[in-house]
């Protein structure tokens, strides 16, 4: 240990910490109040989803991937159905396209409102927290009335959607959007006008465009740093190319910009939903197509989740289960960019920056088992190890 190393204090943020809703470990190295280093440890929430999905049929996987994330519960099914439809070359009915878009955008709004509330909480501004969640509540009620559940709607289906949205339900959604807009204006004004909030958010956790590109960040985190990427525009799917909307973009890359990008995105989502509901009311026809089997092949599906791009890869060798299913969640790219954004700031800024990418750890978790020498175990070795361990336990219990 050199002398220099001794001076650095280590502040543990996690695995259990009021800053986080989920277990994750950040080692914050500080000198006084200044942050000089950050180590990120992932893997506390690993659930083996990819392995599980290899043993389930294509229809069952929908319900499995829906449970990858609690907040953006429709983004994984969305990306998954895109992947399977890409694999099989299915064309879905136009009505299903609009309904899918409505579900995806409703989710974006309530997820961003949730983030805004949490950001207020991390600033010590609990009033914003409670107000923003109060505004989120009517949306969840609409979700329950229209999709059947507040979360985990199970609306997606390979080849279409499960439930139709008729005119009365469409009007309910439209009214919800109209009620929401003035509240969004109020929240935006509160952030823009309050000098104390600005003093806290500006310059905090800045991620410049160059670094943002190098860390491959996605979603609002990238758009706040001036990178114009949005899967909905770049590679349109569902009804995103049939409606009129804009990508919200800021250049600064700090927490203030991230807040503004999300506020603007909510407004755009409301715009998209209104157009979709209007177009949906004039459409007739089925909401899904009949599917007999999934052919051999491979496909990718992408969806712009509230936190960024969700990527699913599905490979099928025929039969009812996929041969390989790979999931990439947006937080995995975004969380690592904290490494750059946090260093050089202070502890309060670090706490805010860690939360500002809207991390969703349970989506993110990856696992890599190594032995003491750093050699990686292969999946087969891991299964063997696990079987040996089970055998040991069984023997112990037999005694």
């Amino acid at each position: 240990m050199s002398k220099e190393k001794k001076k650095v204090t280590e502040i543990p943020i996690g695995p259990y910490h009021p800053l986080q809703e989920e277990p994750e470990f950040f080692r914050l190295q500080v000198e006084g109040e200044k942050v000089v280093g950050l180590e990120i440890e992932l893997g506390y929430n690993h659930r083996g989803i990819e392995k599980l999905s290899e043993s389930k049929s294509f229809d069952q996987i929908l319900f499995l991937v829906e449970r990858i994330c609690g907040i953006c519960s429709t983004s994984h099914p969305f990306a998954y159905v895109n992947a399977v439809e890409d694999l099989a070359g299915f064309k879905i009915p136009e009505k299903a396209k609009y309904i899918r878009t409505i579900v995806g955008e409703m989710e974006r709004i309530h997820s961003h409102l949730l983030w805004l509330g949490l950001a207020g909480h991390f600033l010590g501004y609990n009033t914003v927290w409670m107000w923003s969640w109060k505004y989120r509540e009517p949306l969840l009620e609409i979700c329950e009335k229209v999709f059947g559940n507040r979360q985990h709607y199970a609306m997606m289906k390979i080849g279409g959607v499960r439930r139709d949205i008729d005119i009365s339900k469409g009007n309910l959604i439209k009214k919800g959007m109209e009620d929401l807009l003035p509240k969004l204006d109020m929240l935006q004004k509160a952030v823009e006008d309050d000098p104390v909030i600005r003093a806290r958010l500006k310059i905090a956790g800045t991620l410049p465009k160059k670094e943002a590109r190098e860390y491959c960040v996605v979603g609002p985190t990238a758009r706040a740093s001036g990178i114009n990427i949005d899967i909905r525009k770049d590679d349109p799917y569902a009804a995103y190319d049939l409606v009129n909307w804009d990508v919200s973009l800021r250049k600064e890359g700090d927490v203030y910009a991230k807040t503004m990008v999300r506020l603007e995105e909510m407004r755009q989502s409301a715009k998209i939903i209104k157009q979709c509901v209007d177009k949906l009311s004039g459409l007739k026809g089925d909401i899904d197509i009949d599917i007999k089997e999934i052919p051999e092949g491979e496909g990718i599906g992408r969806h712009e989740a509230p936190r960024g791009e969700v990527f699913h890869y599905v490979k099928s060798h025929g039969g009812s289960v996929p041969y390989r299913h790979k999931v990439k969640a947006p937080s995995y790219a975004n969380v690592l960019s904290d490494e750059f954004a946090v260093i050089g700031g202070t502890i309060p800024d670090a706490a805010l920056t860690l939360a500002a990418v809207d991390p969703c750890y349970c989506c993110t978790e990856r696992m890599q088992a190594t032995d003491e020498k750093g050699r990686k175990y292969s999946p087969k070795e891991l299964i063997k190890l696990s079987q040996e361990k089970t055998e040991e336990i069984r023997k112990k219990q037999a005694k």
Partner: protein
Amino acid sequence: MEMIFFDYIIFPGILFTLAAAMAVSWIDRKVTALLQWRVGPPVLQPFYDFWKLFKKETVIPKGGSVMVFLLSPAVSFSALILVSVILLKTTLTSMAYIGDIFVVIYLLLIPSIAVIMSGAASSNPLASLGASREMKMVLSYELPFILAVCVVLIKTGGITDLAGIVAYQNVHGAFIGSLSGFLAFAVTVVCFQSKMAQVPFDIPEAEQEIMGGAMIEYSGPPLALFVAARWILMALLPLLITMLYLGGIHSALGILKYVGVVVLVILIKNTNPRLRINQTLRFFWGIVTGVAAVSIILAFLGL
């Protein structure tokens, strides 16, 4: 002799102060809840919290200094009880103890020192961060606070006992009515907001950053004492403000003024995010000290 024990333990000492502080704490939680569209706790909730903590186990961290760790909440608590006795006794009996305002200023510093002591004794990096933040906070708000009190002393023409200050205001009108008195009042409210460690100045115990700071290792009765000290501070500082600038709490109107100051504190707390420590230092040494100095000059000019 018995009278002193009665004063210190029952009225207006420990028992009465605790009860009053719990009431103020309940007002705080209820008003906060209403502002945030929640229902809020029942009236006895602070008492339940206090009692629950008293029944819990005390865990002493390894490697910490046991004596300092256990004593600092008690020191903080007893210093505040003393302040409470002085404030309420002077209000009730109008007895003049020359210079008791200085005693109160010193005693009010002890809770901050207790936080620093406990943070240092906890052997926890987050607690020591909290202690260092508390130290910076004391350095930043103490000077403008004392300057603001000087305004009162100048205006009274050198009366240094609280009963005298209140009596002077009852004859000549409350100090808040004059320009310098109003500025001093504003400075004191801001300083007390940070003395009470309330948002936007709850930096030493920022829950989301350093998980309660110096309090992180505390549990059971010591934590109960710490929490009670917080509540008492929340009850006493508005009382001191009322006595210094608003003419005391002798009448029903006076009590209304007191509740008004409490609600003002709660409103400030609920409409601001937490500041960074460097922003706070700049704020206190810049604007707040400046305003305090201006109010002193105005007081000399008789405004």
